[in-house]
């Protein structure tokens, strides 16, 4: 995917409790996913607005509260590829 590719979250059903994990249902695929950590943050940002990978990285770094350093660009690209493969995000028109 090129650096100008814009991503967005698909319309998903979320359930969140007091624990770290978030359960997400994708009505298109019928699949249910348990997500934690950076996956949750990335998907929540992409649900608010479309983003390129760079824009998303800036948002995640700004909000970063985790132990250790924020993810690298390479890790973020892998994450986006994984979320795309799962059908949780799509390329925005």
């Amino acid at each position: 995917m090129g650096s100008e590719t814009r991503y967005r979250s698909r319309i998903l059903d979320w359930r969140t409790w007091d624990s770290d994990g978030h359960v997400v249902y994708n009505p298109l695929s019928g699949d249910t996913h348990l997500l934690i950590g950076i996956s949750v943050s990335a998907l929540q940002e992409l649900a608010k607005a479309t983003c390129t990978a760079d824009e998303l990285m800036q948002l995640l770094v700004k909000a970063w509260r985790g132990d250790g350093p924020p993810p690298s660009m390479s890790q973020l690209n892998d994450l986006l590829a994984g979320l795309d493969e799962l059908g949780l995000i799509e390329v925005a028109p």
Partner: protein
Amino acid sequence: MIIGELSRRELTRRCRQGLAWRIGPFAISVQVQAPLIIENLAFLYADYPICDNAGIIDAFVTVRSAGLMGRHVDIRIDGRKMYCHVPMEQAVPVLEWTLNLCVFHQPSVFLLLHAAAVERDGRVAIFPGEAGAGKSTLCAALIHSGWRLMSDEVAVVRPGDQWIFPSPRPVSLKEESIPLIKGFAPTSRLGRVWPGTAKGQLAHVVPPRESIERMGQGAAPAWIICPNYQPDAKTSLQPCPKDLAFMQCAGNAFNYDVLGAVGFRTLSALVDACDCYAFTYCNLVDAVSRFQELSDSYVGEHSARGCLG
């Protein structure tokens, strides 16, 4: 009328034509001629109400002789062969598995969880889990300690309000659980022990009559408890994160995927409504006592909040 009120002659006649009885929201017909199987059906299902309306039968099970000597049977559901050439000495436990399949694979608007469920004071504890986790053993102990059996195998959850509906059937015990329950509840009605099945030694505990008489009464869910029998382990009830409890239930549901968004929302609401725990045990007396404390504290807590009455 219940099965136990039939004369032996009438029972045999009905079984040859197809004897149907209700199990909670389900009605199943079993057609069989083998005296050994009829005798055990009469014992295990004596308290169950007969269903005479063929229009509401969910599944038709037939048990037919396979081979010339009458030592094996084939078992079908709605004409489809499920088990072939079953030795007669294993036919009763295999028939019980067949009745499980009749329920598991029902097209249903209810969410069907692979879980045991018991009720006390109007609140249901649900035990999802894989085979061998210890849920049937725990279930058998609790139903002989003041808890009502909702089901040993399938928790029936109604979308919308997550009400749990009973489908109580004989509780299946394996191997060392058999003497364990015999020792814990000496007055329990335990059927014959069947050796050499695919799951080892098996026996079935007949539910207390009250569980069967009240099979039309649902109740609200209160706890999701993932049991784990561990020899020599200390009894331990630990809070379980709700996201993990959700995935445990979803992974142990028969029709979660089929129900789609309804399944997701029903299970979410069920988890919302319940306190979730992981439960390790090896001593049944301690385990039952811990459950009593759990039930008492729930009633006390909700009385204080003004949630009852």
